[in-house]
């Protein structure tokens, strides 16, 4: 028994009431109730965490303090003499920055279009949040579902702030993406006759969540990566982009790269550039733990912003309601939403349900924070924080013994490693930083507000409004990765080699920093989080 003393007694309460809770539906919140709990308890609405940006194209708009800190920072190249008239270290049509699901998808499409492509990625190819996405990928490919029904879920979940054309592209491409992945040999959960097995996610009105057990993102990433390698596309690992390079007309034309191991600077010349660098959970907004990959430090946003790309909803952060809270080694780790999708319910200290188990992520997170902070009904942990239960053993009661083992092998293994058998014992959870809802503004082709600069994946903004639904991120990275790859390739084919390579935008940005005193001594992008001697 991993839960000892007082905690053990509380876990027994959960066990005692379990059978009586099977089949009992907790009511969903009304729109008013949802708005109320969000306004009062969601961290996005707590103004202490935000400040007004002093520099750049979004000057005057609100941003989290942590992201504002790196947006308002000096270039790493501020005191570096860099000769852009020298022969480029890499010379390509399409430069893709970031080797996650969006970057890999973009690379495959740009390569298929016949252009010379390269991926520069900060860590290993495939080291990305994509790899960690567990629960699934949405697509309206059942008879009782249509892209229009999916659209309504997307914009309702997104608080009606999504850019309509982007949400449209997302849902209309979704079945095409599933087909693309199926033909690439992605191992989706299927019935004997080939029918995809799909379930609900938070905020879905149809069962359209496709999964590959609870390794969905990993399965997609390793398939895409394998295919990129099969095609012989050049992938340069442990190489971060530290600045964008523009041409004489102010259009994207490459990037300055840094070999993270030798710290040597190089540069790539490219006709078009795709930023696919992912999110920013490792900025640890408001001190929250995060479910994000080690590399999620918003680098692409920082260098894109300096080059003049406009950001949208960059102040909107998704807190995943079910982050691991205990044992301490699991703090912040994502407990897949599929756990709730299969029927696991959040419970307070009295083993009572306090929120419908499939509310959207923002609402569920706010409800958990309310239960712990306002109502004082959280479960106090030996580590000094409070949490709520997520009753995972109820899954086997609902769907039959063996369901957890079959459907949630990763979760089972992860908790087992630290002494919790989630088939028998409930999990302890608290919201964790999960996703950057906004990012750099794109159009439906993935083009940013800077010419020849594309953005795809979590780094892009506008698709999900201010709250993304489960299963729409794995979808988004592939939809917009492919679109960006195709359009960047097509644009490249009409372009001659860029001329007059420069980083004049840095001089302008630095002058602004100088004038406002906004940057203090900070430099960026962050590239790696610092956890030494904490």
């Amino acid at each position, binding site marked *: 028994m991993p839960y000892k003393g007082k905690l053990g007694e509380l876990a027994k309460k959960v066990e005692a009431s379990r059978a009586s809770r099977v089949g009992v539906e907790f009511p969903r919140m009304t729109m008013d109730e949802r708005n109320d709990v969000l306004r009062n308890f969601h961290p996005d609405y707590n103004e202490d965490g935000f400040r007004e940006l002093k520099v750049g194209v979004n000057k005057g708009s609100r941003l989290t303090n942590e992201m504002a800190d790196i947006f308002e920072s000096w270039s790493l190249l501020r005191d570096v003499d860099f000769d852009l008239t020298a022969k480029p270290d890499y010379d390509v049509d399409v430069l893709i920055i970031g080797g996650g699901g969006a970057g890999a998808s973009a690379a495959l499409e740009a390569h298929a279009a016949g252009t010379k492509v390269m991926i520069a990625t900060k*860590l290993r190819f495939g080291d990305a949040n994509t*790899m960690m996405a567990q629960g699934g990928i949405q697509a309206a490919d059942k008879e009782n579902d249509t892209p229009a029904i999916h659209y309504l879920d997307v914009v309702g979940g997104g608080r009606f702030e999504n850019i309509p054309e982007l949400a449209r592209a997302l849902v209309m491409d979704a079945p*095409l993406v*599933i087909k693309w992945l199926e033909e690439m040999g992605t191992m*989706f959960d299927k019935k*004997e006759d080939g029918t995809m097995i799909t379930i609900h996610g938070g905020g879905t009105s149809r069962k359209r969540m496709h999964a590959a*057990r609870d*390794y969905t993102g990993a399965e997609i990433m*390793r398939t895409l990566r394998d295919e990129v390698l099969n095609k012989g596309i050049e992938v340069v690992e442990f190489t971060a982009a530290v600045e964008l390079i523009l041409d004489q007309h102010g259009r994207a034309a490459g990037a300055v790269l840094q070999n993270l191991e030798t710290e040597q600077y190089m540069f790539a010349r490219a006709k078009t550039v795709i930023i696919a660098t992912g999110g920013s959970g490792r900025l640890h907004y408001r001190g929250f733990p995060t479910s994000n990959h080690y590399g999620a430090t918003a680098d692409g946003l920082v260098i894109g912003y300096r080059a003049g790309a406009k950001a949208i909803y960059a102040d909107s952060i998704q807190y995943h309601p079910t982050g691991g809270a205990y044992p301490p080694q699991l703090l912040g780790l994502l407990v897949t939403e599929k756990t709730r999708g299969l029927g696991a319910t959040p419970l307070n200290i009295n083993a009572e349900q306090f929120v419908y188990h499939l509310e959207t992520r923002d609402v569920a997170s706010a409800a958990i924070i309310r239960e712990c902070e306002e109502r004082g009904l959280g479960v106090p942990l030996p580590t000094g924080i409070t949490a709520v239960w997520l009753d995972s053993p109820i899954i086997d009661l609902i769907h039959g013994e063996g369901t957890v083992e079959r459907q949630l092998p990763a979760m089972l293994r992860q908790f087992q490693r630290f002494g919790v058998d989630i088939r028998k014992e409930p999990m302890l959870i608290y919201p964790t930083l999960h996703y950057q809802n906004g990012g750099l503004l794109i159009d439906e082709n993935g083009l940013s507000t800077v010419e020849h600069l594309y953005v795809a994946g979590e780094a892009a903004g506008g698709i999900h409004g201010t709250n993304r639904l489960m299963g729409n991120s794995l979808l988004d990275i592939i939809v917009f990765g492919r679109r960006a790859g195709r359009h960047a390739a097509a644009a490249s084919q009409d372009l001659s080699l860029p001329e007059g390579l420069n980083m004049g935008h840095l001089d302008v940005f630095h002058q602004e920093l100088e004038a406002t005193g906004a940057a203090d001594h900070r430099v960026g992008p962050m590239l790696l989080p610092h956890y030494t001697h904490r």
Partner: protein
Amino acid sequence: MSDDIKMVDIYVMGKRYTVPETLTIMDGMEYAGYQLKRGCGCRAGFCGACATVYRMAGDYELKVGLACQTKVEDGMYLAQIPFFPGRKATFDLEEIKPSVAHFAQLYPEVYRCLGCSSCTKVCPQDIDVMQYIAYIQRGDFEKAADLSFDCLMCGLCVSRCPANIVHYNAALTARRLYSRYVAKPDAYLAERTRAIEEGKLDAEIDELVRSEVDKLKELYANRDIE
């Protein structure tokens, strides 16, 4: 760090550091002052970047684990294996079939397995690696795909194999072959993608795209839920 947390000694590549016992190996290395570049990825047991070999003081047995998924212990001697130069065969999925003949061209070493079970013993995911290699050998790609599915491609199996098999790449190829050719395609999915490509679903969605927010809110609040 509060006083009631016990400290333990770990030896990173032979060098001793004293760290809190509640930490994972990865956290322990960072606590000790390492700024990780290699050997650190998702920090959640999905990416296989942090394969680690360790031995307890006084013991001879080598153990393995993912640094992000294994707690430090007193007297742990450890080294990471962040990269292993395993070979990947390249192929065109449309040109190959799930057959022993095709597989033997891509990964002939698979058929030289000595049956020593070193791969299975070393797997941090507790996968019966040798068994899925056996399934591949006899062309049972369905079983190989199923059994190898939880593989993180950390490479520890390859590091111990006397026959130089690159298990994780062979398994990935087997899963792709199974998913492409053995598992049936979803029939309705094909129908749906055709309808989208032919523009048959445009009118319905375009009406929503053009709708005012108030109208969308009303539709959303009243949508029926499966």
